[in-house]
């Protein structure tokens, strides 16, 4: 029943998204938006149909069992919290690249991530973080010639050979 409730939530989110896209499509010229508008309308119809089907199934099951079901189970909450941690760390990594440069940002990101994911800091993580950051830097920025991102600190340029 929880999965049916989740599906209904998913359908509702898609209804809102597709309505927004349809609305946006009317602000473009006809030639530019004909396919976009058509697809958005198809998505509205599909989302509404899916929502109605799932709500009907959920209400029928709730009536038969005599009780409602939660939207999220225990595992779902843990999963969501882990995902928020990952998103936050990657977001911080992106910010750090623009502040301290790629090499230092990667080192800090890998070290902090491993500490957060395992729950405890280890000396091995420091060594691994340094090695990984240096390897990625050498491979992409020196061997493959990818352009260095701009940052406030010129730390990366000291390690740029090519």
């Amino acid at each position: 029943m929880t999965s049916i409730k989740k599906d209904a939530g998913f359908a509702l989110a898609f209804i809102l998204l597709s309505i927004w896209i349809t609305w946006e499509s009317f602000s473009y010229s006809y030639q530019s938006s004909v396919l976009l508008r058509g697809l958005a309308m198809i998505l509205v119809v599909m989302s509404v149909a899916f929502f109605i089907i799932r709500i009907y199934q959920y209400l029928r099951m709730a009536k038969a069992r005599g009780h409602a079901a939660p939207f999220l189970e225990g595992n779902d909450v843990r999963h969501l919290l882990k995902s928020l941690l990952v998103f936050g760390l990657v977001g911080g990594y992106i910010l750090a690249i623009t502040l301290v440069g790629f090499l230092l940002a990667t080192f800090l990101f890998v070290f902090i991530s491993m500490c957060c994911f395992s729950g405890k800091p280890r000396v091995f993580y420091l060594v691994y973080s340094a090695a990984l950051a240096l390897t990625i830097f050498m491979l992409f920025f020196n061997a493959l010639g990818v352009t260095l991102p701009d940052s406030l600190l010129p730390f990366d340029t000291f390690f740029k050979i090519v």
Partner: protein
Amino acid sequence: MLDALSIGFLTALQPSMLLAACVGVTIGVFIGMLPGLTSTMGVALLIPVTFSFPPAVGLALLGGIYLASTFSGSISAILLNIPGTPSAVATCQDGYPMTRAGKAGRAVGLSVFASCIGGIFSAIVLLFMAPVLSELSLMLGAPEYFLLALFGVTIIASLSEGSMLKSMMGGVLGLIISLIGMHPLTGEMRLTMGLPSLYDGIPLVITLIGLYSIPEVVNILSEKSNSQKRENSQFSGAWSTLKDVLAQRLNVFRSCVIGTVIGIIPGAGQSIASFIAYDAAKRGSRTPEQFGKGSEEGLVAAETANNAVTGGSLVPLLTLGVPGNAVSAVLMGGLIIHGLSPGPILFQNSPDIAYGFIFSLLFSNLLFVPVGLLVAKYCVKVIYLPKEILAASILSLAVMGAYAIRGQVSDVGLMLAIGVLGYLLTFFSVSRAPMVLGLVLGTMAESNLSRALSLVRGDVGELLLQFVTRPFSLALVLLCVASVVMGYRKSRRSSLAAQDTT
């Protein structure tokens, strides 16, 4: 013709050519494995290295990179459920479930041999039928390209795991996302929200990295322990899979043909070929319910087709001087740099180079078998790593891969946003493959529909008439109709069977 073939064969057998092919294959295997590094990037980065080489040797090196990187995208797809290249998305469907079932070695073995056979088939077709096939590619226009994209849309439903309606919604969302950015004809910006990084649309590779890497990292962190993975992750049985691949004669032959034909069509792409072959294998299989759960037929079909595209994509390049995809466009640059003009003249004036290159592709297809298996044997140990190390490493490589595409930090933000979307899709049990197919097809469908409409001055009736009067268009229309009807009948049969059992 026989003289030219023998000159080419002897050229390809020279030690320098074989060495170049071997080096190219080795580099290509590593490039394809890393998400964010594509065949196009690998070939482009190594063109300057070939300046000092004889043209044939340089082409052998670049050809080896192209073939091997196309195959090796499947290694990370199979082991980590993260496709290394866009063409490996269909491989994730059944490759990763095989790893979860303890058959990582078998999956990689099937992938290697299937890719080898697909590549050899298309190289042979390129060798003997290139001029005929090039005339075929000239007969295709905007209406045919649009219908091909439409045909691809009809197979979105067959990629669904669980609720078909949910998967179709994901597919339509993928189509919509592909339209973000500038309209190909009018130049109007759509759904960019004022962000300059969206003006050119969202690059497919960034979408793949975000859609697959971030949700997989969350899954890795949510797994209870590594001990079950260690028991399940044996790399054995890889070499014995050759006879299993050969036993699937019809599946392999069909996928070879699909891949080669799609490759000949400029702009169609390897991803489309692998999905179409996957769908065809599913429809023709006696156990279609196994697809998406570790079906060897699905894996073989996808891998055979995506490597069969390689030879096909070189047909328009070598015979007409028209690049078939991004990689062949870069290869064309390589040819021009070496003073060669791609086209029919290349075969007349430099048969040793033209045919030597094709024969070296044949040898490269054989070379990546031992190289790929050797690399994969050690790569499988990656999944033994503690989850915090694996997760942090994947994330840092994903960030780097997303940045390396265009050299913009905003692309990493885009990757993160797509990653959030990908996570939400997995949270709500929506398959990502239909969305990826939608992303691949959307741009192709829209640009060709716009082009086809402008050729008939906006007359929709005239366009519809063209769909049924042009022979290839008619064939594609019939394929689309057959695909929809067969899909509906199959779903009706399975829902009736479900009612009977209850």
